[in-house]
C-alpha cells in the first residue's frame, strides 16, 4: 500500500460521510461525483496505464444502463441486474477489445468513438426491446421516501466507486499493470519479450468497461427513465478524459481528484451560465491543456516536496 493509494482510500472514505451534512441536493451531487470518479478511474486503466486513447466510455455506460433497465423491467432484482450488466460489459468489451485494440493512436480513437454511434443506433432501432427513441421507463425500486431512495443510490454508487478504486489499485500493483505500462512505452518491444499484449489489452479494456457499465445500471435505476441520446451522449466519453488530464494521466489519485474538481467546475458553470455552459467548458478545457498539461498532480512536485521530476 503506497502513500498515494492510502490517500485515495481516505478521500473515498470521506466522501461516504456526505449524507451527514447535506440534503437531497448534496446527495445528488455526491452520486454524480462518484459516477464521474468511476468513469475517470475506469478510463485510466486503458487510457492512462496502457496509453490507448479510448472514447468508448459512453458506449459501455449506455450499454450497461440499457442492460440493467431491460432486466429490471423483466422483474430481475436490482443487485442481480447490475452484476449481470457488469459481467456482460466485461465480456463484450474484452471481445471487442481483441479486435479494436489492434489499432493504434488516432485509428483506435476513431474506432472507439464510432462504437458509441453504433450502439446508439442499434438501441434506437431495436424498438421492441429498448423502446427506441421514445426511451425506456424503469419501475421504481422501492416504495420508500425520496430521501431514503437518494441515500440508497448514493451508497450504491459509492460502493461501486470503492470497488473500482480497489481494482484499479490492484491492477496498478500487479503484473497486469506492469504489462500495461510496458505496452504504453513500447508495444513492439513488450511483444518481443513474450508479453501477450492482446490478452493484456483486452482484459484492460474489459475492466475499463465493466464498472462503467455497472454505473450505467445504477444510473438507470436511479433516474427511472433513459433514452438513447441521454445515455449514449458522447460527452460521457470526453468528460473522463478531461478529468484525467485535469488530475494527471496515469495516477489514480490524480484522476480521482480531477473528477471531483471537474464536477465542481461543471456545477458552477451550469448554475451561472446556463446558456453558454458548454462554451465555458470548452474554454476551461483549452486553458487546462495550454497551461497545465500534466494535470493538478504536477502542481505538487516542487511545491511541497523536492523530488526528481519525471522526464
Amino acid at each position: 500500500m503506497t502513500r498515494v493509494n492510502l490517500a485515495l482510500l481516505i478521500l473515498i472514505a470521506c466522501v461516504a460521510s456526505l449524507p451527514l451534512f447535506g440534503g437531497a441536493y448534496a446527495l445528488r451531487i455526491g452520486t454524480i461525483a462518484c459516477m464521474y470518479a468511476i468513469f475517470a478511474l475506469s478510463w485510466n486503466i486503458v487510457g492512462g496505464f496502457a496509453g490507448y486513447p479510448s472514447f468508448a466510455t459512453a458506449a459501455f455506460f449506455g450499454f450497461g444502463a440499457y442492460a440493467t433497465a431491460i432486466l429490471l423491467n423483466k422483474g430481475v432484482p436490482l443487485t442481480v441486474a447490475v452484476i449481470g450488466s457488469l459481467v456482460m460489459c466485461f465480456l463484450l468489451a474484452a471481445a471487442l477489445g481483441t479486435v479494436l485494440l489492434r489499432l493504434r493512436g488516432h485509428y483506435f480513437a476513431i474506432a472507439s468513438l464510432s462504437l458509441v454511434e453504433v450502439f446508439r443506433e442499434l438501441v434506437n432501432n431495436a424498438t421492441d426491446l429498448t423502446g427506441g427513441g421514445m426511451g425506456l421507463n424503469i419501475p421504481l425500486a422501492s416504495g420508500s421516501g425520496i430521501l431514503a431512495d437518494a441515500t440508497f443510490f448514493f451508497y450504491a454508487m459509492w460502493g461501486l466507486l470503492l470497488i473500482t478504486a480497489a481494482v484499479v489499485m490492484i491492477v496498478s500493483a500487479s503484473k497486469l499493470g506492469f504489462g500495461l505500462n510496458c505496452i504504453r512505452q513500447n508495444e513492439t518491444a513488450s511483444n518481443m519479450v513474450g508479453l501477450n499484449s492482446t490478452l493484456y489489452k483486452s482484459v484492460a479494456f474489459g475492466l475499463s468497461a465493466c464498472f462503467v457499465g455497472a454505473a450505467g445500471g445504477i444510473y438507470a435505476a436511479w433516474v427511472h427513465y433513459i433514452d438513447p441520446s441521454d445515455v449514449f451522449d458522447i460527452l460521457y466519453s470526453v468528460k473522463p478524459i478531461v478529468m484525467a488530464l485535469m488530475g494527471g494521466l496515469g495516477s489514480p489519485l490524480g484522476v480521482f481528484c480531477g473528477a471531483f474538481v471537474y464536477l465542481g467546475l461543471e456545477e458552477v458553470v451550469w448554475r451561472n451560465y446556463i446558456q453558454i455552459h458548454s462554451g465555458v467548458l470548452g474554454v476551461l478545457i483549452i486553458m487546462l491543456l495550454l497551461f497545465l498539461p500534466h494535470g493538478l498532480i504536477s502542481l505538487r512536485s516542487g511545491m511541497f516536496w523536492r523530488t526528481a521530476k519525471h522526464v
Partner: protein
Amino acid sequence: MLAVQVLINALVLGCLYACIAIGFSLVWGVLNVINLIHGSFIVLGAYLAWGAYQWLGISPWYALVIAAPLFFAFGYLLQRLLLNRVISAPVLVTLTLTFGLDLILNNAMIYYFKADYRKLTLSPPTGSISLFDVVVPVDRLIATASALALTGLLYLLLRRSKVGRAIVAVRLDRDAAVLMGVDVKSIYAIAFGLGAALAGCAGVLMALIFPISPLTSSAYLGKAFVVCVLGGLGSVSGALAGGLLLALVEGIGSTLIGPAHATTLSFVLLIIFLVVRPQGLLGRKGFE
C-alpha cells in the same frame, strides 16, 4: 430503373461527402491532428450562405467566394495562435483541444442562431431534371459540380503550386521537409487554413441541400471520419473514393434494409475497414 436512380443518387451524394471530408483528411494527414471542430466549420459555412442570401441577397455561388478567404484566415489564425502550442503533444491532447474549440464554436452558434432548423430556399426554385425515369434536382446537381470543382482545385493546388508541394512534402516526411528548408510551422497553419476553407465551402454547398442547424455538426463530422478511413488519409483521390463508397453503401443499404439503418451500416463499415484495411481503399501500407 430503381437501381439506376440509387446509383445516380449515390454519385451525387458521394461527391458532396468527399467535399465534406477532404479538408478533414488534409488536416489529419498533414498535421496529424483529428480536427473535431471540422463539423462546426461546415455548419458555420452553411449559416454564412444562409445569412448572405437571406439578409444581403447574395446568391450562394458568390457566398462560396466570400467563405473561402474568411475561413482560411480563421483557420490560419486558430492554428497559429492555439493549436501550434500543443502540436507535438500526444493524440489525446490535440484531440481534446479541438473538442474544446468545437464546444465553444457550437455553443456560440446555438446562442446566436438558436437551435432551430433553417432552410435556404432559392427563389425561384431551380426544379429538377428528369431523364427517362431518373430524377435529379438541379440544385443538388450544381452543388455536386461545385464540390467536384473544389476537389479538383485542391488537387491542382497540391500538385502544381510551390505551397502545395511543400504541404505534400511535410505530409510524407516532416523531418526531411525541414531539412529541405520548408517552414513547417507556416505549412501547418496553411494546411489548417485550407482545411477550414474547404469546410466552409462545403458548408455553403450543404446549405443548398440540407436543413441548417448547429446540431447537425456531429453528423457531418461522423461522415468525414468514415470517408477518411474508407478512402485513405490525406489524399484527394482517397477522399473521393471514400465518399463514393460511403454514399453507395448507404444508398443500397437504405433501399434494401431501410433508411433507419444507414448510419449503423456506415459505422460498421468504418470499423471493419479500420480493422481489415486501416490504410483505406487507396492508401499504401506504412504510409501514414
